[in-house]
């Protein structure tokens, strides 16, 4: 929550024209990017999210994982 509050305070840097400015070094957490996959993705939309079919596991789109 602390990080979230910090982000919101950074959004004070909001100008009149355009969009809020949030420095990424502060707003972005330590999550690691995954390496690009070798094969082309098979895209499906689930709940509005554009994902790869393999994101969904072996079931049909929308099926709860696990």
């Amino acid at each position: 929550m602390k990080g979230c509050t910090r982000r919101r305070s950074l959004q004070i840097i909001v100008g009149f024209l355009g969009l809020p400015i949030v420095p990424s070094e502060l707003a972005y957490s330590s999550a690691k990017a995954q390496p690009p996959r070798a094969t082309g993705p098979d895209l499906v939309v689930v709940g509005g999210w554009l994902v790869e079919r393999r994101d969904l596991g072996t079931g049909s789109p929308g099926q709860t994982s696990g």
Partner: protein
Amino acid sequence: MTEAPFDCAVIGAGPAGITVARKLAQANLKVALLEGGGRETTLDSQALYEGSASGLPYDLGLSRLRYFGGTSGHWTGMCRPLDREDYAPRRDIGRTAWPFDGAELRPYWPEVCDILDLPAKPQWRPRRDDVDPADIKAQESAGLREIYWTWSPARFGDKYWPEISASPNISLFLNTTAISFTADGPNGSAIRSVECRDTVTGEAKSIAARLYVLSCGGVENARTLLFSNALNGTAHGNTGGLLGVGFMEHPHVRVGSFVGFKPFNNPPGNLLSFRYFKTLPAFQKKHGVLNSAIRLLYGGKFEREDFAQWKFSLPEPVTGGEVFVVSEQEPAPGNAITLTAERDRLGVPMVNLDLRLSERDSQTISASARAIAEYLVYSQSGRARIDLTIPIQPGEHLLFGNHHMGATRMGKDERKAVVDENGLVFGTQNLFVAGSSLFPTSGHANPTFTIVSLALRLSEHLKTYKA
């Protein structure tokens, strides 16, 4: 009261007018710089910007500032030149071209950077070595390219007040509202004076000059010409009926959310630049859409439970934010500034802005949203949830950039434009326009960088121009 003649009367002291006035004064021309507001904003002066909106709700009073320095007094400072393809015709969708290509303005960029307090050579896109080739391939597969905006701290009123107030070649007239022009010659083509009123007292004032530059903003430029034509029975700039027509904004649309696995906000080590993705020209042609840029903005609305239904392995903690599309808008004939029957307290008709999103505008936003969602999958750098139901009412999801473009468009043909390739109003010998109202197309970039580029180009032209 009539003021002594000047070489040039520059009407409006915003980024365009201040730039023209400075450059002409540096060339030893005598300049009258007219500003409708004062050194500071006042509610009384600002009220003269009020108007109505018959299309989408739009606040004409709040979207610009009426004082020395103009709207640069509250801009975000976001800078970027137009893309090369923005200058070109789009025969596939019937879009007009600029009267010159993008290379025409490049010689002015170094001075624009100096004026706007930007780095001498801003980085407008990543260095090739800084981007993973696989990521470039993912961008291209989605029809995108990573680009940068950069930030200007310049407030023209603060920055240039000392120079302008001390210049022996500039006579500054604050609180002097230009109302109309008087003219002589065949068809009233030679502008003889600009008729003004004191913004505070209403006292009439006439200022004569050899040349005139109308630079009082993307709405007021059209308003002043429309009213002057109505008073004089002239059709300056309006042979083709395009004066005030083809107004463009930059819709800023929140199209959805994203979860991201890498930074997207700023280029490495550069907090004063901002990372966007733009659609490639081939993408625009393939989908029949306009130019656009997409920003992934960490820190917006984001709900962890949205991901519960799919198996994708999410990093912890999950980071994400909002997806914004900044879109070019079509110069649709219905998007127009017109005079109304209602008058302001100086007797000038107030304006109505009819601004709507066309089907192509909406398609541009939708296609851009889909493209960024595809890029996140292709690059394995995130996922996006896109709401393709584009809102038609401004509010939480749709904002405008307060960029007023296209109402006095440039062109080579007086039947298809209001001013020629140098900004000379068709049908006149000595009346020029500066500012974003010149733009025949708007691209997606904030306009100030191009406004100042055009103002420098116009200044060069005027130094030797003889009517």
